[in-house]
């Protein structure tokens, strides 16, 4: 198998301590950065939607907006892939609790917001995007599988693609199962060709039967371990800050995705 090549044109990041990619770069330089507001601003959403939208949607839309703004692309023209290990765990907790007690009182709005593709739905509605949109999950490999899917779409369709990977903190009994204790999202705009907007080039290669290599490292207490997307994406995020480097992420249970990054000339 030959490597897939894709060019990064935009990057979005959000966590409780990082408002965007600039903040991440500053933090990696050792500077102190101001914490963002508690709710991701998600200013791309109309005000009425922003008030109604669940946290999972605000987070995904926020990082998507950042990446698209950096790329200078038209949001409505980008096919998009939204990846999340657990989807909206707050709504899952609400729904399961309500169904256990008073099932006929279930909120219709929360139900339609519970679909895994709610962020993709809100995003395409807000941006007038008629291009294909997808919502995927792959357990602890959700970040790598999302990157592989976005790169595949980008290269087969020969057009730029938006990738959004995010998970919110869990809550209640289902939160105990996910172990997700913090919110984190990141987004990339990937293009099949090098151009004026290219920031870095990614060479992606699958490495099969990599089971032992993909076992999680011993926990160090680092903050990103509290979120499945953050822990999977963190090595790539650091390379994005540097503009180069190599890392390996899980694309499936025993399938590794090797990501070699070079600064785009």
């Amino acid at each position, binding site marked *: 198998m030959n490597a897939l090549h894709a060019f990064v044109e935009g990057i979005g990041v959000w966590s409780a301590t990082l408002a965007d990619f600039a903040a991440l770069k500053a933090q990696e330089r050792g500077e102190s950065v101001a914490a963002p507001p508690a709710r991701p601003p998600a200013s791309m959403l109309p005000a009425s939607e922003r008030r109604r939208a669940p946290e999972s949607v605000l987070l995904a839309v926020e990082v998507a907006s950042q990446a698209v703004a950096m790329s200078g692309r038209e949001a409505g023209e980008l096919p998009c892939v939204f990846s999340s290990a657990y989807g909206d765990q707050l709504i899952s907790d609400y729904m399961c609790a309500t169904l256990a007690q008073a*099932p006929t009182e279930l909120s219709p709005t929360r*139900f339609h917001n519970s*679909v*895994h*593709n709610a962020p993709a739905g809100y995003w395409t*509605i807000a941006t007038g995007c008629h291009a294909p949109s997808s919502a995927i*999950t792959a357990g602890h490999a959700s970040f790598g599988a999302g990157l592989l899917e976005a790169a595949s*779409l980008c290269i087969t369709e020969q057009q730029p693609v938006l990738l959004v990977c995010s998970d919110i903190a869990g809550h209640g009994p289902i939160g105990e199962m996910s*172990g997700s204790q913090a919110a984190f999202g990141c987004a990339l705009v990937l293009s099949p060709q090098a151009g004026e907007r290219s920031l870095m080039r990614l060479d992606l290669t699958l490495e099969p039967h990599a089971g032992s290599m993909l076992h999680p490292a011993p926990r160090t207490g680092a903050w990103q371990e509290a979120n499945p997307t953050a822990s999977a994406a963190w090595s790539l995020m650091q390379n994005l800050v540097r503009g180069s480097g190599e890392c390996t992420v899980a694309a499936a249970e025993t399938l590794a995705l090797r990501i070699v990054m070079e600064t785009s000339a």
Partner: protein
Amino acid sequence: MPVPIQPLAVSAYTVTSALGHGLESHVAALSATRGGLRQNDFSSAPLACWIGRVDGVEDAALPAAHAVWECRNNRLAWLGLHQDRFLERALDVRQRYGAARVALVLGTSTASIGATEEAYRRLDDEGHMPPDLRRPLIHAPHSLAGFVAEALGLEGPCLTVSTACSSSAKVFANAERLIQLGLADAAVVGGVDTLCDSVLFGFNALELVSPEPCRPFDQARRGISIGEAAGFALLERVGMAPHAPRLLGYGESSDAHHMSTPHPEGLGAELALRDALARANLHADQVDYINLHGTASLKNDEVEAALVTRAFPTTTRASSTKGFTGHTLGAAGILEAAFALQAIERGLVPANLGCTTPDRACGPQFALEVEQRAIDVALSNSFGFGGNNACLAFGRAPA
């Protein structure tokens, strides 16, 4: 417009739904226009509606080696894998290409949320899940594909697509991309969704559930009947199975209109259709049969009927099979892809069960009764919440 794809062979496929286990029971029911809906005997609290429930799911216990994945949705997956020798065919493909060269892409809307619901009904005094359900893997949306990957021993790219009711149609597109790029030599695609309180009471809250068996495209339709199903298909390059029916194309689009209501002019549905035809290198007048999304919701059927009427000649036949199976949500794509494939392989155009007085938007394309005729090209429509649309194009292998 997209460029045409190289067709892929659908070298094996199977479905299990309220109509029975495996393809033969489905063909028998469709041929006799015998529906599979029953009065709701499933939800944890009473709800007057009709459902498409699969018999025997409760008895399909997983082998001890896979016990960590135990839940009703994975039992339905396991039951489904055993029909039409699909499990053996999949293991044969793994043997032929190697475990890492076979992709697995499955669609589901609710995965095993039914197990999470049960855990919440049985919380202990301190509010924790009961010990037998403290299994994190089944409380995540990847539960289905995680289980099937382990059961089939597949180690290639593995993905769950969860875009509501288009989920297991879109998996064909994901798989085609992976094979086209050489990231896999073959793919197991499909989907499984089981009945659960979330969807029964959720669609009820949206006032979309019919109190009677659903009647797609009928003027007097009153909403959907929810069903459950499992289905799987094997995709390979055509040289490996030259006589098998083929995936000719697929189209995907977004409505950009509303979270739970389709675009009033069917804009996204038509984009997905045009995209699928372009990828399949087909014109609308070459389409012999369309298995419609046809949920029996007021809005979907009106919009979809108008699209069929304006986009296809009178020679194209069209029907919704949801009157037989109910709306199987994330499994609808694969179930109805199998009906499109059976239309090609058996010349079987299913009746639009439940429709006696068609909506005024319906044209002469609608097949109200079962028909036997040669079908060379068949489409399948699947549209989901969030305005997520997919259209699949299948065709007969050249003689």
